[in-house]
């Protein structure tokens, strides 16, 4: 019993630690990437290639004055960043980061590199917890007692509700093809087999439309450009977090980056084969675990870079464009994808 608890706790610590480290790394990648795209150098003074810049930034934010403006709704004002961070951290417990079925640690089966491998409703849990994230933003906007904050919060909630629908429909296509709600099964179905001997059977091939809808929708869900209307500096100053300073502000920043990592991990898991890689049937045990982590890491890195790449390449949508894209563009496409998957499965084109 205690051995199992220890293994679970170790998994939580390792995964949470990795994710929080990724947040710091992504901050560096974002700044250097932005500089690269805009043909300048970016932060390069602190450490080699400016790699220690996130640490310096974190220290700076820690020591800034923690200001609570007058006339805010104090309890909710404190609660909002907490909700954002907790929700962002909770979603990781069902994502399978690597193979680990036949690995034992001190005689205890690892059961996959995820915190909750036995949760039968994995994807639903993720969507459910993810849908609570909007409260952090809405409450921050409302409790700050500031018109820019409120507008940011309102925009954000409208946006999240609109795009959640298309995102869920796109996920449904994958679940239909898998026949299970567990992300483990989603990954297992995509691995080891090939079309025409070369194309891996990733969900992205038959469901390219669903994949595109999903990627666009998670960009909107993470409030990243071109969908960052909730913070739109030029019109709303900084939107919902304009009244926050110090670590409370950093909490929103951290949750944004954690949501980015979750979103990328989900894209990889649902559409790009998760931790599977060609030739994996030749390995087992620890080598398979190590290689699967590397495979997942490479795929994850690509989509994390995609987030940065898009942010510094595309301008922001106008509000009406955003709503038109969500309701008249993505929603019909996601529905079409679902119908296509159903027909293809009924006809036996995809198993």
């Amino acid at each position, binding site marked *: 019993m205690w051995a199992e608890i220890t293994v679970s706790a170790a998994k939580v610590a390792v995964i949470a630690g990795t994710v929080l480290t990724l947040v710091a790394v992504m901050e560096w990648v974002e700044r250097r990437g932005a500089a690269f795209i805009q043909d300048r150098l970016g932060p390069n003074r602190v450490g080699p290639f400016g790699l220690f810049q996130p640490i310096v930034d974190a220290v700076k934010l820690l020591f800034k004055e923690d200001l609570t403006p007058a006339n805010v709704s104090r309890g909710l004002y404190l609660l909002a960043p907490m909700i954002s961070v907790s929700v962002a951290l909770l979603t990781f417990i069902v994502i399978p980061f690597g193979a680990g079925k036949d690995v034992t640690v001190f005689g205890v089966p690892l059961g996959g590199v995820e915190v909750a491998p036995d949760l039968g*409703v994995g994807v*639903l*849990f993720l*969507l459910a917890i993810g*849908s609570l994230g909007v409260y952090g933003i809405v409450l921050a906007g409302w409790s700050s007692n500031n018109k820019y904050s409120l507008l940011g919060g*309102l925009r954000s909630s409208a946006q999240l*509700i609109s795009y*959640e629908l298309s995102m869920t429909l796109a996920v449904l296509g994958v679940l239909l093809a898998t026949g299970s709600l567990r992300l483990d099964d989603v990954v297992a179905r995509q691995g080891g087999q090939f079309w025409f001997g070369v194309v891996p059977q990733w969900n992205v091939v038959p469901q390219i439309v669903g994949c595109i809808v999903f990627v666009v929708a998670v960009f909107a869900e993470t409030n990243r450009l071109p969908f960052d209307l909730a913070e739109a500096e030029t019109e709303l100053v900084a939107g919902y977090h304009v009244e926050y300073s110090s670590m409370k502000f950093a909490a929103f920043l951290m949750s944004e980056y954690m949501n980015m990592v979750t979103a990328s991990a989900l894209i990889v898991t649902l559409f790009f084969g998760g931790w599977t890689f060609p030739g994996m049937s030749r390995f087992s045990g620890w080598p398979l675990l190590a290689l699967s982590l590397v495979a997942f890491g490479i795929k994850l890195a690509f989509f994390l870079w995609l987030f940065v790449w898009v942010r510094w390449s595309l301008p922001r949508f106008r509000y009406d464009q955003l709503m038109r894209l969500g309701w008249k563009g993505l929603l019909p496409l996601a529905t079409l994808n679902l119908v296509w998957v159903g027909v293809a499965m009924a006809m036996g084109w995809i198993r």
Partner: protein
Amino acid sequence: MMGTAVFYLVAVVGVVSAIAAVSHKNPVVNVLSLVVTLFCIAVSYALLGAEFLAAAQILVYAGAILVLFLFVVMLLGAPEEPPAGERRPFQRAAGLALAGITAAGGVAVLAGIRAAGPAGAAQGTADALGRLLTGPYLFAFEFISVLLLAAMVGALMLVKRKH
């Protein structure tokens, strides 16, 4: 043991936040308390082995419907409610009588229930529920979805401006 502790925790938190949901002066706090209550109910579903129901509860109610509630409350400005002014003389007595009747009915219903154990491992899963909904209860399931559609169209008709 662990399950019992969690049950008592969510039971107490759920009831307290339910009371806050109807009694607090601030509409935003009302909505949020309702979110907490629904979350506690979802946890008790999970404790009973109905994990699909738990996830659906959070996804549909806490994650979607109450966000819309909050949206509307914020759009309308959410003034703090002033303490109720003039009362009708019989209001309090009528309220007490109704509460008594409701409580008696609740006790009667509760007394008639056999203590139900947790659902079997296979009963609360998405698979089992899906089979029930598309098998024996297909008609009721489709009927309810048509009913919801009709309600939605009706609401649209009611708020439509005449040109």
